C-alpha cells in the first residue's frame, strides 16, 4: 500500500493478534502464554490454600492435646491439603511452565491444540471450587487421606461423589494438557531442533505427559469403582461381596507412583536448565540425562506396591518390589552426579534461581536417601505410615518440586514480565524458605523413627518438642511465601528492564533467550535461524 494512513496501520495491527482486552481475554484465550499465566496463578493461589490447611494441621500439632479442631476436621485437612497441593498447586504450576516455555524453547509460535488448551485450564477452577465446597457439606469433606482408601472413604458423607467428580475433571484436564504437549513437541519443533537437541525441561515434560496419559485413567477408574460401591451396590472393594479392599490400593498406587514422578520429572528439567546457565558451562551428560529420565519413567510403572509393604503380600511380591524400587536409585544418582559435574570447574554465580537449584540438589538428595531406606521392605515395616515417611515425601516434594518451581519462577520471571525481579527480596525469600523448610521437616524424621504414626491429630507427650519445632518451621515457611507473591507482583508492575538474554551467557542455553523480554504474543512466528539452534548446548 503506497499511502498508508495512521488508521490503516491500526488495521494491520489486528493481523498481529494481540491480546483481547478485559476479562474475556482470559476466558476465551487460546494463547499459550495467557494460558500459562492462568495455570501459574492458579498454582500459586492453590499453594496458599493448601498451605493454609497445612498450617491448621501444624497449629493443632504444636502441642499435645486437642486445642483447635475436631479430629474429623483434622482428617479433612490432611486429605484436602494433599489433594490441593498435588493437583492444585504443583501440577498446574508445571503445566503453566510447559505452556509458557515449550513453544518458546522448541521454536514454535504456540501450542499445537490451542482450543483444547483453553478447556484443559478452565476445567481446573471449577474442579477446585467443587472440591472446596465439600468442606461445607453434611459430614464434611473426604477425610480418608488423599489416597481415598476404602472402606474408610465409603464412610464419607455427601462429599464422596463430588470428590470423585473432582478427580474425573482433574484427570480430563491433565490428559488434555499431556496430549497437547506431546503433539506440540513431536510436530512443531523448528527445523534443526532434533529430539536430542531439546532442552531437558522439554524432554522431562514429554515423559511426564506419557506418564499422565497412562495413569490418570487408572485413578479415574478406581475412584469410579468407589462411587459404584457406595451408590450402586457393587462390591469391588468389599470382601463381604467377594471384593478386596487391597485391590483399590494396587490400582491407586499404579497411578500414585508414576504420579509422584509426574511431580518431580519436570523439576529435574528445570534444574538441568538452571545449573548450566549459572555455572556458565554446558550441561554435563545430556544424553545420559535423557536416558536416566526415561528409565525413571519406565521404572515408575513397576514399583507401585512399595507403598503397600504392610498389606501382607506374598514374600515374592515383597522382594520383587524391593529390588525394583532400589533400582530407581541408579538413574536418580546419575542425575545428581551429572548436576555436580556440571557445576564442577564452572564459574558459578548465586542469583536466586541458582540458590534454589542448589538447595534442590542438596535437599532432594536427602529425600532420595530416605527413599532408598524405605525401599528396603523389612525396614519399611517400621517406617511405613510414620512421620519418617511424612518427612521423606515432603523433602522430595517441597525442597524438591516446589523449590524447582521457585527456581523456575525467578529464572524466567524477567523473560515473562520484561522486568528484573527484586534480587534482595528473592534472596531473603530463599534463605527464610530454606531454613524454615528444614526446621519444619527435619525433626519429623526423628519423631517418625521414634514411633509417631502419621495422620494423627494428637500425640504422646514425648514427641512434643520436635512437633513444636516443626510447627514453628511450618509457620515461618508459610508466611515467607508472601514475600514470593510480592516479588512476582512487583516484577509484573515494573522494575529494571530485562535484556532478551536476561542472564549472562544464557543465549547458549535455550531459544527462549533469543526472544525479547517480554516475548512477542506469538512466540516464534518464523522459525529461528538454524545456526542458533546448532549452537545451543
Amino acid at each position, binding site marked *: 500500500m503506497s499511502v498508508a494512513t495512521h488508521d490503516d496501520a491500526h488495521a494491520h495491527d489486528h493481523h498481529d493478534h494481540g491480546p483481547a482486552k478485559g476479562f474475556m481475554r482470559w476466558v476465551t484465550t487460546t494463547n499459550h502464554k495467557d494460558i500459562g499465566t492462568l495455570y501459574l496463578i492458579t498454582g500459586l493461589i492453590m499453594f496458599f490454600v493448601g498451605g493454609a490447611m497445612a498450617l491448621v494441621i501444624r497449629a493443632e500439632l504444636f502441642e499435645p492435646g486437642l486445642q483447635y479442631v475436631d479430629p474429623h476436621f483434622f482428617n479433612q485437612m490432611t486429605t484436602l491439603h494433599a489433594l490441593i497441593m498435588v493437583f492444585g498447586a504443583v501440577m498446574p504450576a508445571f503445566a503453566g511452565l510447559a505452556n509458557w516455555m515449550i513453544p518458546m524453547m522448541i521454536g514454535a509460535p504456540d501450542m499445537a491444540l490451542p482450543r483444547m488448551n483453553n478447556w484443559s485450564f478452565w476445567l481446573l477452577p471449577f474442579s477446585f471450587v467443587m472440591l472446596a465446597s465439600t468442606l461445607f457439606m453434611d459430614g464434611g469433606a473426604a477425610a480418608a487421606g488423599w489416597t481415598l482408601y476404602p472402606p474408610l472413604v465409603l464412610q464419607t458423607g455427601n462429599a464422596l461423589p463430588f470428590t470423585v467428580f473432582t478427580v474425573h475433571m482433574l484427570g480430563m484436564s491433565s490428559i488434555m494438557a499431556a496430549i497437547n504437549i506431546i503433539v506440540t513437541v513431536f510436530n512443531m519443533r523448528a527445523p534443526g531442533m532434533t529430539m536430542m537437541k531439546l532442552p531437558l525441561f522439554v524432554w522431562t515434560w514429554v515423559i511426564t505427559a506419557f506418564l499422565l496419559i497412562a495413569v490418570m485413567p487408572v485413578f479415574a477408574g478406581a475412584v469410579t469403582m468407589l462411587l459404584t460401591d457406595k451408590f450402586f451396590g457393587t462390591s469391588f472393594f468389599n470382601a463381604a461381596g467377594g471384593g478386596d479392599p*487391597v485391590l483399590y490400593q494396587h490400582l491407586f498406587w499404579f497411578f500414585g507412583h508414576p504420579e509422584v514422578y509426574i511431580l518431580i520429572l519436570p523439576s529435574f528439567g528445570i534444574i538441568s536448565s538452571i545449573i548450566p546457565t549459572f555455572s556458565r558451562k554446558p550441561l554435563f551428560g545430556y544424553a545420559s540425562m535423557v536416558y536416566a529420565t526415561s528409565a525413571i519413567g519406565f521404572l515408575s510403572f513397576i514399583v507401585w506396591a512399595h507403598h503397600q509393604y504392610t498389606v501382607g503380600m506374598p514374600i515374592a511380591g515383597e522382594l520383587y518390589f524391593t529390588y525394583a524400587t532400589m533400582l530407581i536409585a541408579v538413574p536418580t544418582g546419575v542425575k545428581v552426579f551429572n548436576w555436580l559435574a556440571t557445576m564442577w570447574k564452572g564459574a558459578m554465580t548465586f542469583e536466586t534461581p541458582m540458590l534454589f537449584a542448589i538447595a534442590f540438589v542438596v535437599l532432594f538428595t536427602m529425600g532420595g536417601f530416605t527413599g532408598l531406606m524405605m525401599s528396603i521392605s523389612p525396614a519399611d515395616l517400621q517406617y511405613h505410615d510414620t512421620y519418617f515417611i511424612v518427612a521423606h515425601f515432603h523433602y522430595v516434594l517441597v525442597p524438591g518440586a516446589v523449590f524447582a518451581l521457585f527456581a523456575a519462577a525467578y529464572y524466567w520471571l524477567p523473560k515473562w514480565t520484561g522486568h528484573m525481579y527484586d534480587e534482595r527480596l528473592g534472596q531473603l525469600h530463599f534463605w527464610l524458605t530454606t531454613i524454615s523448610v528444614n526446621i519444619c521437616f527435619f525433626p519429623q524424621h526423628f519423631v517418625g523413627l521414634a514411633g509417631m504414626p502419621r495422620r494423627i491429630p494428637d500425640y504422646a507427650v514425648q514427641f512434643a518438642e520436635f512437633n513444636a519445632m516443626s510447627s514453628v518451621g511450618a509457620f515461618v515457611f508459610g508466611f515467607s511465601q508472601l514475600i514470593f507473591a510480592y516479588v512476582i507482583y512487583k516484577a509484573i508492575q515494573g522494575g529494571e528492564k530485562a535484556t532478551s538474554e536476561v542472564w549472562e551467557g544464557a543465549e547458549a542455553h535455550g531459544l527462549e533467550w533469543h526472544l525479547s523480554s517480554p516475548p512477542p504474543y506469538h512466540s516464534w512466528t518464523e522459525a529461528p535461524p538454524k545456526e542458533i539452534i546448532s549452537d545451543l548446548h
Partner: protein
Amino acid sequence: MKKTLQLLTSLWSVIWGVAYAETGSGTGVGWGALNLPAGATPLSHDIHDLHMTILWICVAIGVIVYGILIYSLIHHRKSKGVEPAKFHENTKLEILWTIIPFVILIAMAIPATKVMIKVYDTNESEMTIKVTGYQWKWRYEYLTDGLGKGIDFFSSLDAKSNEARQLGSKIDPTTVEHYLLNVDNPLVIPANKKIRILLTAADVLHAWWVPEFGWKKDAIPGFVTDGWIKVEQPGIYRGQCAELCGRDHGFMPIVVVVKPEAEYKEWVAEQLSKKEANKVDLSKTLTLDELNTKGKEVYAANCAACHMPEGEGMAGTFPAIKGSKVALGPIADHVKLVLHGKAAMPAFKDQLNDLETAAVVTYQRNGFGNNKGDSVQPADIQAYK
C-alpha cells in the same frame, strides 16, 4: 559408629533440654529416642541393624556427594575469577557412577532379603492370638489350647487419656500417665514364646504396630494377615494403630504386657475364672434406673465417639440418637441395629454382652430427652441375635 550416633543423640537431647531416656515407660521402651528402637524381639533387632546399615551407607554417600558439592561451591565461582571449563561428557566416568551404585544396591539387597524371609517365617509358632481392629479399639482372642484359649476381650484407650484428649478438655496431657499410649485391657503374652499374630478388621483398615516388636501389619476387613513376635524381656510395650481408620485413629493405642511364663499361666487361669463369674444372670429383671445407669457407662465407652456424648451425632456422617426414629421407634428394630450394625455402624453383638446391650438400648430410648419410657431386659436380647 554406634558411639557416634549415641553422641549425636545425646547432643540433640541437650539442645532440647529433654531427658529423653526418662520419658520411656521405665521398661526400656525408649519412646523418646530419636532413632528406631533396637526393640525386644529377634526381628526388631535384625530390622534395627538393617536400618543402621542403610543409614550409614547413605551417610557415607552423602558425605562424598555433599563434600564434592561444597568444594565446588567454594572454588568454582565466578568471583574467584575462574574461567569455566568446556567439558560436557565423560563416558568412563558416567559408566562408573552407574555401576558403583548398582553394586552398593546389591550389597544392601542381600541382608534385606534375609531379614524379609525371617519376617515371613511364622512356622513353629507356639501360640496364636487373633487381633481384630474396630473403629476405634482392638479385640484380642486367644486361640491356643492351654495357653489362654477362650480369652476374648476388647482393648480401648484408657479413661484418663480419653478425658484429657477431648477438644477443650483443659487437662494438661503431661499430667496424664502414658497419655494416648495406655489402654483399659492390655494384651498379655508370655515371654520367650514364638507367638503368631493373626490380623483382621471388622470395619475399615487398621494396622497393628508396636515399634519394639519391629514390624507393623495392616488389619484388613475380610482378610487375615499375619506376623510373629517373640519377646525376650518381660515388660510393658506400647504402640498405636498405624493406618488411618477414621475420626479416632489417633486414639486406639496398643499395650502389650509381657509376663514370665509362670505368671502368664496364672493370668490365664484368673481370666478364665473371671469370665465364668461374669456370665450375665439372665433370670434377673432390672429396673429402668438400673438399666439407664449401666447404659450410660456403656454408651460413653462405645457410642459417644460417633454419636457424641449428648447424642447429637454429626450431621451427614453419624446420625443423632437424640430424637431419632430408631430410638423412638419399635424396640426390636433398635436392638437389631445395635446387634448387627448397618453401613458404617459396627455390629456390637460380639462387643457387648446381653446386659450391656439391654442397658445401652434402654438408655438411648430414655436419655437425651428421648423419654420413651420403655426398656428391654438382658434375657430378651438372645432372641434378636
